[in-house]
């Protein structure tokens, strides 16, 4: 292929920006069976004394009867223990705001302009963040790392496996769709209010609409060019029109074009009900679909609309009050969204919260039950597994324990909705990446810190 990309479509050119250079370790030793555990599949099934069998990284069978184990497969005694799918966090800044907290580690907001769709969280992500190991110690096998919310359009997020790697690209969740981070409400207008704007909510909307208008024009130019590619040149009578001059590339526009084409899933930081409605009007105007609202503390006020339009809600169990747009948060937000037929998700947005997503789901679950909302343990589990997988577009390969899905599995010491329970072992794509008995954290930050003082 030509280095200059002559004759290539926009999608072909974009692919180049996604190639890896670090060899990715193939799944090895991913054949094992857990026997005798209580298995919660996140599909609504609970198998007492059940089993999960993983072969070559994929789930071969799940059920109540004993499997006896594959030939040569290691058998893990799960008696008295619980098994769930690996947890998925739709909102993390691990890697882009890594620990130890240091000014040099502040890589999450490209706060130099309100619209920066061309930046990628992946390029900020530091795989040595010790938080990654702590996240998997909490049962998280997949996380969605995002730019911060300073910008109207903050750039691309990235869906990652929680595995050790030397660069973020090798952590990429295979074939996960690209995502984009957008923000509405207070943050962009606070950050840019005295730096040229936007300084108001109406300014926010103008900024976002202008960006997508530009993207529409950019896409039209490329369509025209791509349509001419089969042309024969010359432009004489009876022949196809000539190949047009290739439009110049624009990284900001490329991301937005991906949104317009439905390839890139919009993840929008938004708190207030009316702000979310504004964002849905924006998406309607430009013909794309919001995949998930993040934080979304007032989702409960518009849960009917969100359910009808199949927009998921990534929220906390109980954060509220830190700013005006977070003043009306209630603990039943996720449960009410669920009750209305919507897709509720508990996210962390926190290096601490990601270590105990199961506890956050438990709080939201019991708050719902207390309010008389009909819920069961499977619903609460789906808030941190299957529904989160949906928001990231990876629901066909992970998020539940089902035949043919990836071996993303957590073995828990007790019921995951109990405060004292902890993951004992965690597998990502069938490979054991965490074992409570062996505290072998993989971050280089931790190396040598304990040397005899």
């Amino acid at each position, binding site marked *: 292929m030509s280095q200059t990309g002559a004759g290539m479509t926009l999608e072909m050119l974009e692919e180049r920006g996604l190639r890896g250079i670090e060899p990715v370790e193939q799944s090895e030793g991913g054949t094992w069976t857990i026997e005798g555990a209580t298995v919660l599949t996140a599909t609504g099934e609970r198998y007492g004394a059940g089993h999960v069998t993983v072969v070559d990284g994929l789930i071969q069978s799940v059920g109540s009867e004993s499997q006896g184990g594959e030939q040569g497969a290691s058998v893990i005694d799960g008696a008295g223990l619980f098994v769930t799918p690996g947890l998925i966090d739709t909102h993390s800044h691990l890697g882009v705001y890594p620990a130890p907290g240091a000014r040099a580690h502040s890589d999450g907001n490209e706060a130099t302009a309100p619209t920066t769709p061309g930046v990628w969280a992946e390029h900020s992500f530091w795989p040595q963040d010790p938080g990654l190991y702590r996240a998997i110690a909490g049962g998280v096998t997949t996380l969605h790392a995002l730019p911060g919310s300073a910008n109207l359009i903050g750039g691309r997020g990235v869906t990652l496996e929680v595995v050790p790697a030397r660069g973020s690209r090798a952590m990429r969740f295979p074939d996960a769709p690209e995502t984009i981070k957008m923000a509405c409400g207070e943050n962009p207008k606070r950050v840019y209010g005295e730096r040229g704007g936007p300084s108001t909510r109406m300014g926010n909307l103008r900024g976002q609409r202008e960006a997508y208008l530009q993207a529409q024009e950019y896409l039209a130019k490329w369509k025209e060019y791509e349509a001419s590619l089969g042309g024969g040149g010359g432009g004489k009578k009876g022949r196809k029109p000539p190949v047009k001059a290739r439009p110049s590339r624009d990284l900001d526009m490329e991301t937005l074009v991906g949104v317009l084409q439905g390839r890139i899933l919009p993840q929008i930081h938004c708190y207030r009900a009316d702000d979310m409605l504004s964002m849905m009007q924006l998406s309607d105007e430009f013909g794309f679909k919001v995949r998930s609202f993040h934080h979304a503390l007032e989702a409960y006020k518009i849960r009917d609309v969100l359910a009808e339009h199949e927009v998921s809600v990534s929220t906390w169990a109980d954060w509220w*009050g830190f700013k005006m747009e977070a003043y009306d948060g209630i603990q039943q937000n996720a449960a009410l969204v669920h009750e209305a037929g919507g897709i509720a998700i508990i996210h962390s947005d926190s*290096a601490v919260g990601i270590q105990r997503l199961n506890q956050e789901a438990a709080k939201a679950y*019991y708050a719902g039950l207390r309010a008389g909302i009909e819920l069961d343990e499977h619903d609460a589990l789906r808030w941190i597994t299957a529904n989160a997988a949906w928001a990231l577009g990876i629901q066909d390969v992970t998020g539940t324990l089902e035949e043919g899905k990836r071996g993303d599995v957590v073995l828990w010491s007790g019921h995951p*909705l*109990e405060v*004292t329970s902890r993951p004992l072992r965690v597998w990502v794509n069938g490979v054991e990446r965490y074992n409570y008995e062996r505290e072998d954290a993989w971050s280089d930050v931790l190396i040598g810190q*304990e040397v005899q003082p």
Partner: protein
Amino acid sequence: MMWALVGSIAFAATPCTAVVGTTAWTDDGIVESATVVVAGERVVALSTSAADVRLDGEGRVQWRGHTCLQIDGEGTHTTPGFVEVSSQLGVTEVDLESKTRTYDAGGDPMRASVRVADAYNPRSTLIPIQRVEGVTEAIVQPRGGFISGYAAGVQLAGASQAEAVLSWEAAMHVGGLEGGSLAGTLASLSEMLDDARNLRRRSDDMRSVMAASVSGASRADLNALYPVLDGRVPMLVSADRASSMEAWLRFADREGVRLIISGASEGWLIAEQLAQAKVPVIVDPLVYGPGGFDQMQARAENPALLAEAGVRVILSTFETHNARNLKQIAGNAVRGGMTPEAAVTAITRTASESFGLPSGHLQVGERASLVVWSGQPLSFASHPRHVFIGGEQVSLESRQTRLLDAYRTLPGTPPALP
């Protein structure tokens, strides 16, 4: 008429309330099938065989001949109300709206004479939001400055400062030198304490003492330090690194002041020294881990290891809007190896005693700030059925329960026109 009115109020306030058949987490341990009797502002009995208590013909608990309001405690647990010691309750409403924040007095960095209780708003919506989840008292800490001023002890009930504030001078909060090293903070603090001592010794010659003052603190601020000099009120300081705590312990010993150390992420490394110095520590079991270079040795087992070594451990959310998560915090301390009893003690008795508050107990004769939980108090599955603050049952409504009610059916507020 006047007499009748007064009489009816006295009658309406039932003379006593009895929680019958609850599992009581008393100061002396867990007692099953207990009957907790509250009269006035105190716990007056913990069993039906106590003096002054008997059952009437219908099996109802009577205290000194009064039939008590009966609460069926079957399946419940009763603990002292939880105490959050690291809050800005009542002095903030919406953090990013500076006009709603009153915890930072501003101005002169030497602010020992500031009492944050003067800025306390007992009608803040945050207060019921915490108490409906079992938080009954709190320490309200001021912020900012080298010395921020006096933290307050409050009960999460009462419409006036006079009712709500239990202690106007619960601790002296030290902010430290902004961006400076601990060495500088300790040196400046020593100078200030020295000035206070000089002023006190030679109050007859105030003018020349103030002229010789090196700290630059005002007379009012130096005056305000006297209770600290006497060890009557502790200094509340922050430190995470083990060596920083070590320096604070040496400082306290040299200056003869009492300390409470907040943070203490690496406390387990010097647990014996902390125990020996009898310095309470305020810790968070949810601490991230190596979140900063002063927390490289932080670990989830910190509270358990500290408690085991005999350190006075206080657990805290370090949150204001979500001080209600004390239950989760304590649960995580148990996950890290603490016993449930020790974890509950750390958010009740140890918390209140360290700051000189009268709450945090479940014991005959003690102030009745209590929570009747629907089940195991540290389980996510349980919630408060009844909350008593200073002997009075408080409402279990909050702005958030009202929002839930308003939106239980859509379109919520404003209601649809008829």
